[in-house]
C-alpha cells in the first residue's frame, strides 16, 4: 500500500485529521531541507509536501515566489530534490512525501525519467499545479505503474461535472483550494469550505484536504472540523523568510508553528 493511503487509513482509525506542511525545497539553501522535513515530522506532520522551485510560479503569491527565488539562487534542481528525499528516507520510512510544483521541470527531465527517480527514492505522490487531469494522459499511467499517487486540485470555481472527472482521476487525496487567488493571499472562510466539500463527499472516498489561507492554530482547527486534512504552506515559508540571517533557528521555528496547529487540531 502506498504510504499516503496507509497514513490516511491510520488517521481514520484514530479519528484524527491530517496535518500537511509545505516547504519549498532548497529554501533558504539545499543543506537545510532534510532537517526541516524531520523537524516537521517531529511537530506532528502526517504528510510532507515538498515544493519544487520554479522560475515562474504562476499560482503562488509573493511568499512562495520569493522562496522559489532563494532556492533557485542556491541552484536547487529537481534532481537535488530526489537526493533530499533519499536522505530523508534513510531515517524516516513511514511519512509520505509529495512533490508539488509546476510541470516544466518535469517535462524537461522527461516524464519516465522523473517517475523512475521519484519511485526509487521514496516519493509517494505528485501534485503538478498547472496540470489538470485533461492534460495528464501521458504522465498519469507512468505514475500509476510505479505506485505514485497523482494528486489533483479542486477549486471553488470547479463545476460538479469537472469535480467528478477530477475525483475519477485523483489518487492519494484531493487538494481543495479554499479560495480564489494565489497561495498566501487571504484567510479562508471555514463555512464556505464546508459548503464546497459537501458535494465532493458524494463523489469520492478520497480524503479531502484543504489548503490556501491557513495561518495558525485557529484556522487549522476550524478546517480540521470539516476536512480530512489541513495543508499549510505560506505560514511556514514566511518563518523561513523572516530568519534568513539566522538559518540555524528555522527548524525550531517551523516546529513551533506546526506544533501549535497540531495541538489546536487535536484538541
Amino acid at each position, binding site marked *: 500500500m502506498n504510504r499516503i493511503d496507509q497514513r490516511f487509513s491510520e488517521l481514520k482509525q484514530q479519528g484524527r485529521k491530517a496535518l500537511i506542511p509545505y516547504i519549498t525545497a532548497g529554501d533558504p539553501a539545499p543543506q537545510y531541507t532534510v532537517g526541516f522535513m524531520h523537524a516537521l515530522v517531529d511537530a506532528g506532520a502526517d504528510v510532507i509536501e515538498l515544493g519544487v522551485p520554479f522560475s515562474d510560479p504562476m499560482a503562488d503569491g509573493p511568499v512562495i515566489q520569493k522562496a522559489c527565488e532563494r532556492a533557485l539562487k542556491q541552484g536547487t534542481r529537481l534532481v537535488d530534490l530526489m537526493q533530499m528525499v533519499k536522505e530523508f528516507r534513510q531515517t524516516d520510512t513511514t511519512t509520505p512525501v509529495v512533490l508539488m510544483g509546476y*510541470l*516544466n521541470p518535469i*517535462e*524537461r527531465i522527461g516524464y519516465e525519467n522523473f517517475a523512475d527517480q521519484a519511485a526509487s527514492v521514496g516519493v509517494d505522490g505528485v501534485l503538478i499545479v498547472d496540470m489538470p487531469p485533461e492534460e495528464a494522459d501521458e504522465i498519469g499511467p507512468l505514475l500509476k505503474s510505479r505506485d505514485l499517487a497523482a494528486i489533483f486540485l479542486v477549486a*471553488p*470555481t470547479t463545476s460538479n461535472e469537472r469535480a467528478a472527472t477530477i475525483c475519477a482521476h485523483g489518487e492519494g487525496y484531493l487538494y481543495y483550494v479554499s479560495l480564489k*487567488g494565489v497561495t498566501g493571499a487571504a484567510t479562508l472562510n471555514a463555512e464556505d469550505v464546508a459548503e464546497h466539500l459537501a458535494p465532493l463527499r458524494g463523489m469520492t472516498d478520497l480524503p479531502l484536504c484543504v489548503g490556501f489561507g491557513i495561518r495558525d492554530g485557529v484556522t487549522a482547527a476550524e478546517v480540521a472540523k470539516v476536512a480530512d486534512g489541513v495543508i499549510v504552506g505560506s505560514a511556514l515559508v514566511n518563518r523561513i523568510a523572516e530568519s534568513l540571517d539566522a538559518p540555524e533557528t528555522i527548524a525550531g521555528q517551523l516546529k513551533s508553528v506546526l506544533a501549535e496547529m497540531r495541538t489546536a487540531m487535536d484538541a
Partner: protein
Amino acid sequence: MTASETAPNTVLKTKFSDLTRMPDARGHFGPYGGRFVSETLSFALEELEKTYFSLRDDPDFQAEFDYDLAHYVGRPSPLYHAKRWSESLGGAQIWLKREDLNHTGAHKVNNTIGQALLAKKTGKPRIIAETGAGQHGVASATVAARLGLECDIYMGAEDVQRQKLNVYRMRLLGARVIPVESGTRTLKDAMNEALRDWVTNVDNTFYIIGTVAGPHPYPLLVRDFNAVVGREARRQSLEQIGRLPDALIACVGGGSNALGLFYPFVEDDDVAMYGVEAGGDGVETGRHAAPLASNAPHGVLHGNRTYLMSDEAGQVSDTHSISAGLDYPGVGPEHALWKDVGRVKYVVANDNEVLEAFRELTHMEGIMPALESAHALAHAKVLAPTMRPDQHIVVNLSGRGDKDIMTVAKIDGIEF
C-alpha cells in the same frame, strides 16, 4: 499524423490543409498548446471557450466586429508597394501590410476589439492585460475606455522604463499600469502577474491575452481575430499584384501578427512564409529571444506546451531583445507545429540588423516601423536580393515606431 488519417472524407486542397483544422477539441496543435492551468482558472476558460464558439459563426457578432474594424480601427489597412526600397535592394518587390496605420498604431487592436466584444457579452466589468512593448496595453486600455470598463495593465518594470511613452498613453486612457518587479521584469513576468490577478478576480474580470499563446482557447481566438490581416493581404495581392505573393514575412514574439498574416495563406503552397524571431546579440551568444530558430526544448509555460527557452533543469531562461514586444522565452503553439511540419521557416534578425532596417525604411520610404516589425524588414533585406524583380514579398509592418524613438535616440547618444 497524415491528412488522410484525420479526415478521410474531405478533399484536401494541399498537403497543409490539415493545419486549417487546428486546434483539436482540447486546444492541442499536434503535441503543442493545451490548457495547462491551475484548477481555479479551468472554469473561466471553459466559459470563454463556450462563449466564443457560440459567437464565432454568429452573423450579428461578426457584423459588429467588422463594423468596429472598419469604423473604429480604420480597416482595411493598405498594402503599400515600397518601390524605392525594393529598387535599392535590387531584387523582389516589397509590399508592406500597413498595420501601423491602425488606430493605436499596431495590429494588436484587431484582437482587443474582438476580445472586448467577448468581455461585453460575458458582462464582466473589469479587464486586465499583460504587455511588453505597450502596444497591447494601449490597445486594451483603448477598448476599455470605449466600453467604460475598468482596466489594469501588467507590465514588466524593465519595459515600463524602456516604453515610457506607452505607459503614459495607457494612463491617459484611464488604465492603471502596474509595474511587475518579479523575475526578469519583462513580458513573461507581466503574464505571470496577470494570471495571478485573474485567478483572484476571476468572477468579475476578463483577461485579454495579447498574443497567440496562453491556455486554450486564447491561441485560437487571438489568431481568428488577427486573421483579418491575412484575408485583406490576400485579396489586396490579387488586386494589386495580380496574383499571390511569393513570400510573406512577419516578426514572431508570441506570434500574433505573423499568424494573422499567415493563416489565410496556409493552403497556398507556393507562398513561402518566414517568421523572424529576435536574435538579440546573436543566437550563438545565448542572449536572444528565438525559441524556434534556436531549436529550444519543448516546455510548458503560461498554459501551453511549445518551444520554450529553458535550462536543463527546466527553469525558464532570461531572454534579450532590443524590442520589448519580442522579449519572450516561448512562442505560440501553432507556430511550434508549423515549424515542425515545415510550413513556415523561422529565422532570426539580430539587434544591429534590426536597427539598420529601421533606419533604412525611415530614410527611404518615410515610414518609421516599430522595432518589432523591423525584424521582419531586416529579413526582407536578406531575402529580396536573392529573388527576381518580378517576384513579390509581403511584409507585415505590424506597428509604428513612435514608441521606439527614445530607445533609438539612446543608442545614438541623444538625450532629451
